[in-house]
């Protein structure tokens, strides 16, 4: 079916009706392929055993809420950012702080480690994303070498290097995502489509892919083609802000965490939501999600200070982790899957294994 020609004299109202009709039709078409539920098929999968997951390291040093963290490819270093403007690089294994930068703004909501391990990017209320090369010289003032890369018209909510130190992908409270060339600061591509703040993003894990997913306050999760800037798939089943999105390791699906207190799994090939992870006793929003290496476990950090561990296939919760004394704001599994790190409004980060 070719894209329908829109007549110039069509009113907004009639267009909206057309759009609604198409939406209903699309839902019907998708529903036809929904012959079974994931958890039903997964009944034949062996159940997971009891888990003993504990805090193995506690990183203390931030003076205020930890808002974001990211792992270095070396599997042991991390970068974290906080409400008080501090960005700290840690060797999480020894818990030593290796670098610290003070940003000129408060609420540094986004930070990311460069693939080379030689730089970090961060930003927040300053509406920018800046890159700091990490010096081996402890005495060197990192702030002096700072490079301003991205410029948005509202707060920076998330940032991520692509497969190289040379490009950064950002999302912002201004409702857009953008791809930037680090060296020149030039905007390579912008992504428009969200109707409100974009809160999170994640790059597809493929070596050959050029896509990423974003989630926003418009309750939508959008999949984008980095090359064309087009939104290629969109999912709207959450009932509130989507705080976190993360790809399933195969790249065929992604999970989301929302203020509606649920996490959900969306499959790109089925083009629909395929699982909901929720419980009557979980009433606070999920702030951050990530998968274990095989994709069997989904870790969710919540605003009720806990971390819930979900069996992705069966849809059940396998563990609840207590420890943080305030909201869990950020959570990432390490690059080799041996641990995951959670950051919290209680000023600390914890490594769990």
């Amino acid at each position: 079916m070719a894209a329908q020609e829109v007549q110039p004299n069509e009113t907004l109202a009639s267009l909206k009706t057309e759009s609604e009709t198409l939406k209903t039709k699309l839902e019907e078409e998708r529903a036809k392929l929904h012959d079974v539920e994931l958890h039903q098929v997964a009944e034949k999968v062996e159940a997971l055993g009891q888990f003993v997951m504990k805090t193995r390291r506690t990183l203390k040093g931030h003076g205020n809420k930890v808002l974001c963290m990211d792992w270095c490819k070396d599997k042991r270093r991390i970068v974290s950012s906080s409400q008080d403007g501090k960005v700290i690089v840690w060797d999480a294994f020894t818990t030593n702080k290796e670098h610290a930068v003070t940003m000129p703004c408060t609420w540094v909501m986004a930070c990311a480690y460069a693939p080379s391990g030689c730089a970090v990017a961060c930003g927040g209320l300053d509406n920018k994303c800046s890159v700091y090369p990490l010096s081996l010289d402890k005495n060197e003032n990192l702030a002096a070498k700072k490079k301003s890369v991205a410029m948005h018209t509202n707060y920076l909510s998330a940032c991520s290097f692509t497969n190289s130190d040379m490009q950064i992908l950002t999302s912002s409270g201004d409702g857009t995502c953008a791809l930037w060339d680090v060296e020149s600061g030039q905007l390579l591509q912008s992504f428009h489509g969200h109707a409100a703040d974009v809160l999170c993003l994640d790059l597809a894990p493929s070596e050959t892919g050029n896509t990423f997913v974003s989630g926003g306050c418009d309750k939508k999760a959008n999949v984008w083609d980095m090359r064309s800037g087009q939104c290629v798939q969109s999912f709207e089943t959450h009932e509130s802000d989507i705080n976190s999105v993360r790809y399933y390791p195969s790249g065929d699906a992604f999970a989301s965490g929302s203020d509606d207190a649920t996490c959900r799994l969306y499959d790109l090939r089925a083009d629909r939501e395929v699982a909901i992870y929720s419980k009557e006793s979980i009433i606070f929003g999920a702030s951050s999600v990530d998968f274990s290496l095989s994709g069997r476990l989904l870790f969710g950090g919540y605003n009720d200070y806990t971390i819930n561990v979900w069996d992705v296939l069966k849809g059940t919760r396998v563990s609840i982790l207590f420890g943080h004394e305030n909201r869990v704001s950020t959570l990432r599994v390490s690059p080799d899957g041996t641990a995951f790190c959670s950051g919290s409004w209680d000023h600390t980060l914890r490594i769990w294994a």
Partner: protein
Amino acid sequence: MAQATQDQGVMGTSDQDEDSPNMIVYRKIEDIITRIQDETEGVPIRTVKSFLTKIPSVVTGSDIVQWLMKNLSIDDPAEAIHIGSLIAAHGYIFPISDHALTLKDDGTFYRFQAPYFWPSNCWEPENTDYAIYLCKRTMQNKTRLELADYEAENLARLQRAFARKWEFIFMQAEAQVKIDRKKDKTERKILDSQERAFWDVHRPVPGCVNTTEMDIRKCRRMKNPQRVKKSVYGLADDTQSQSPVHTASQHTRKDTKEDVEKEILFLNTQLDRHCMKMSKVAESLMGYTEQYLDYDPFLSVPEPSNPWISDDCTFWELEVSKEPSQQRVRKWGFSLDEALKDPVGRDLFLKFLESEFSSENLRFWLAVQDLKRRPLQEVPARAQEIWQEFLAEGAPSSINLDSHSYERTSQNLKDPGRYSFEDAQDHIYKLMKSDSYTRFLRSNAYQDLLLARKKPETEQGRRTSLEKFTRSVGKSLTGKRLTGLMQSS
């Protein structure tokens, strides 16, 4: 107190954005609170006789915990205590004899907060209100109203801060005391405790979580971001100040005609999409998870140990060693992507292709990957280099492209960019995947690595095939001494 009656419902709902994340949680808690106070389905709320007094309108902590477990399908009491404590921390229930808002699973008495004081009313009480409150507490000679240490400190600080208008504050406090005196004794006990619990939320005990702190990203969405602050004690807003909210420049955009047109185009594209059945999707997800189970440290214990648990880095040291483990080699066989992702796997694949004199495909693919990772400035020059090396007439590492891709790429090179070789790269990838990769997996080089280390702990190292041969010959010639044969090999 300024509130009209105990039963006054939620104040000023027009102020609030019902969809905002905070409100969603508050409404859920309020639903629980309503249910837990229900006459038939809830916990028993009693007046307890104690010494010479009566304690009105209380429930025990363990009653609350039991109710939560039963009605929210919670198996573990720890979980019920946790969520109960959060409900307390947000100010919906409170211990009658403690400033710290937590729930205990014992006979401790708790009371329910008055709806007037609920957080969903978006209170942001000023320090003037707090000063009035502390001041009036000191005016009443009741042991139960005595200030705690931190409250006395707060009061002293406020007296310094509001030195100039302390007379005003004092008068307001007196007025409040007068109003309170008119109330029935039992009612006052209850109201006093509820008022105290309100301040425990907004001016928490040092060390306790301040649950009124907001995520700044979500602040803007309140319908009245520069909210006029209501006074708890009905003061005129002479101390009006603005919430420290980030400048609200954008609310949810209204759809323009263009937006809807775009949406229609998008929906039509989606309708054309060929989608997979759910049963197939499920099998695929399960298959992937099954395949990678052994590689997931949360599900299969890493060898020799998980560094984070044992404090031993051997696991990581093995990863960077020259010899890849059998498990790692096996992974390269899962997909071409896996082989290419691992530098050691990639090198082995490249060597294999070199042995077949077809390495130009992989080298081209790698060059294009590298191109996409370069700074923008370097892209045009590098793109030309790639063209010269792999695609131009008489190129030294000429790759085989179909004419369509070749034409497209040639066109792209007129204005070279990071994606100039996308079509070509895609074509070459598919070629490698269907052809060279499968042969690679069957190759000796790969198979040797895959099968060589059956017992990593006992193997000394790979034996050459010649060594293996002489050993097997030796074994089969039992009892016969054919030294001549041995020596010649």
